[in-house]
């Protein structure tokens, strides 16, 4: 994929924007209250029109409108992903900058911690932490945020090492700037590109993690909708009510695919070496 905005990239960006709009404007777009149950309306197929209105994507096992729930589910996915990526980006970048700038024992300490964290399966660590802290939105964000920072640290560390030896950083030292100022004003902006690429790919992964943990009952708690928990509940009805798993699953698939393709495109833009292809 080239770095220019081709029709394909435009489509990608439009789809991503659509997901964001769906998440932000869910209260306006949703035709029904996603939590209102009605046992008389259980497991209606997509397109059912009744006196209450049209259920475009059908209803779930408690008679709730699936379209409304999927729209609100986008909210959960994007909010968890955005917040947890922010937390890990912040923590990881800070540690990477410190390690790369001061080198010596701070770097050894931080980078060995990174190696340790990266050697533990992320999903296992997340499951364990949620099991201890208890499930819920905030805990989910913290768990994902605080287990995923080593990726950023690695990139920030390597980039800082590289940038710290460039003449303009030496010039800033010669001009008497403090280490903090040099790190924030000169190093950080110059390593931001690769970090944003990592953040994007991590964003897709965080969406999957949220869905996975919610599927396992460790994430967003019922009755609040998340794609993972909707699919989890729909699993038992997969033979009778395919829509319960197919629609949230398709949304998840398309969103993560878009995010990852966007990440690839971003990487090509940031890395001039892959741009020439």
């Amino acid at each position, binding site marked *: 994929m080239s770095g220019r905005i081709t029709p394909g990239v435009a489509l990608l960006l439009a789809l991503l924007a659509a997901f964001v709009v769906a998440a932000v404007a869910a209260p306006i777009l949703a035709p029904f209250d996603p939590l209102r149950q009605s046992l008389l309306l259980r497991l209606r197929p997509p397109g059912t029109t009744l006196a209450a209105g049209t259920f475009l994507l059908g209803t779930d096992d408690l008679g709730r409108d699936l379209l409304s729930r999927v729209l609100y589910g986008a909210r959960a996915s994007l909010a968890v992903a955005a917040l947890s990526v922010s937390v890990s980006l912040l923590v990881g970048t800070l540690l990477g900058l410190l390690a790369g700038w001061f080198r010596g024992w701070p770097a050894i300490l931080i980078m060995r911690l990174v190696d340790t964290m990266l050697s533990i399966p992320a999903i296992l660590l997340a499951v364990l932490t949620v099991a201890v802290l208890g499930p819920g939105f905030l805990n989910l964000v913290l768990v994902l945020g605080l287990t995923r920072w080593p990726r950023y640290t690695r990139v920030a560390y390597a980039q800082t090492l590289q940038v710290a030896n460039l003449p*303009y950083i*030496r010039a800033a030292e010669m*001009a008497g700037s403090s280490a903090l100022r040099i790190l924030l*004003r000169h190093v950080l902006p110059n390593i931001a590109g690769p970090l944003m690429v990592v953040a994007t790919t991590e964003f897709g992964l965080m969406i999957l993690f949220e869905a996975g943990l919610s599927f396992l009952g460790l994430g967003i708690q019922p009755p609040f909708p998340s794609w993972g928990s909707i699919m989890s509940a729909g699993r038992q009805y997969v033979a009778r009510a395919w829509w319960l798993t197919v629609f949230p699953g398709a949304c998840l698939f398309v969103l993560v695919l878009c995010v990852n393709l966007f990440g690839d495109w971003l990487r090509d833009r940031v890395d001039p070496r892959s741009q020439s292809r």
Partner: protein
Amino acid sequence: MTQPALVVEDLSLAIGPAQVVDGVGFSVAPGEVLALVGESGCGKSLTAQAVMRLLPAAIRQVSGRVRLGAEEISALPERRMRELRGRRLSMIFQEPQAALDPLATVGTQVAEALRLSVAQARPQVRKMLEDVGISDPDRRIDQYPFELSGGMCQRVMIATALISGPAVLLADEPTTALDVTIQAQILDLLRRLATERQTAVVLITHDMGVVADIADRVAVMYAGRIAETGPTEAIFAAPRHPYTALLLASIPRLSDVPKSKLAVIEGRVPTPAEFGPGCRFAGRCPLADAHCAEATPPLRSVGDGRLSACFHAERVR
């Protein structure tokens, strides 16, 4: 005589056991341009970095005192030293384009030397850019380094270095990466600013042409030691160290017969591991005798305010 702006005494630097800079000393008066000349690797850049107290980690300072005006700065704590950098003691170097942060505007970088933002210091920055000969400073101030030519970038570096009115400017090969026309312009600029602002300039270079252009005095370095110092005209007219003499002889001249062989200094600079007890130039010196290989010639006065580190200074021609 006025008090010198910068005095360096007995500066010695080592990488492991090898003394790469050995007992170097010099002084510069306000408004004076001193050229520190020598081949690559002779320790001239390290000398400048030692004055700034920003030596690479592998280099150890063995001895040396640095005085800035009346103040001894070699023992200052790092915090105080940082306050001096960019304010009373500035440095510029090669590759002007790489020495500017690609993601910060010209104005931001010049203002940073004042510890201010562009918004706060805009008139001052604008004036400084004008002083270093940047045309259309109102536009340039908001541009990024990639929009500027190499010569323009070096002007911006000079503006950054001089905006806070330092007493001393260390210029490490400031024109090496530039083409000759721009080089002459930048040298003229440095010369003019030094005189106008009474800034002492230590110009590090390997180019005798640059020296002749702007330096008041010259210190010739060879393999980590000062070989000879003195006023520029005197040294060019009659060198008192065989190394200087050979260096001057190796400058190609327009009057040379076309296609004739260029003059070279036979042999090569000894590596720090090969330094013996004697004169470090002895191995390549046409005047060297047995004594030269055994004893280090001290810097001694050879008249007209000149010093030479050669036992045979009087025989050099």
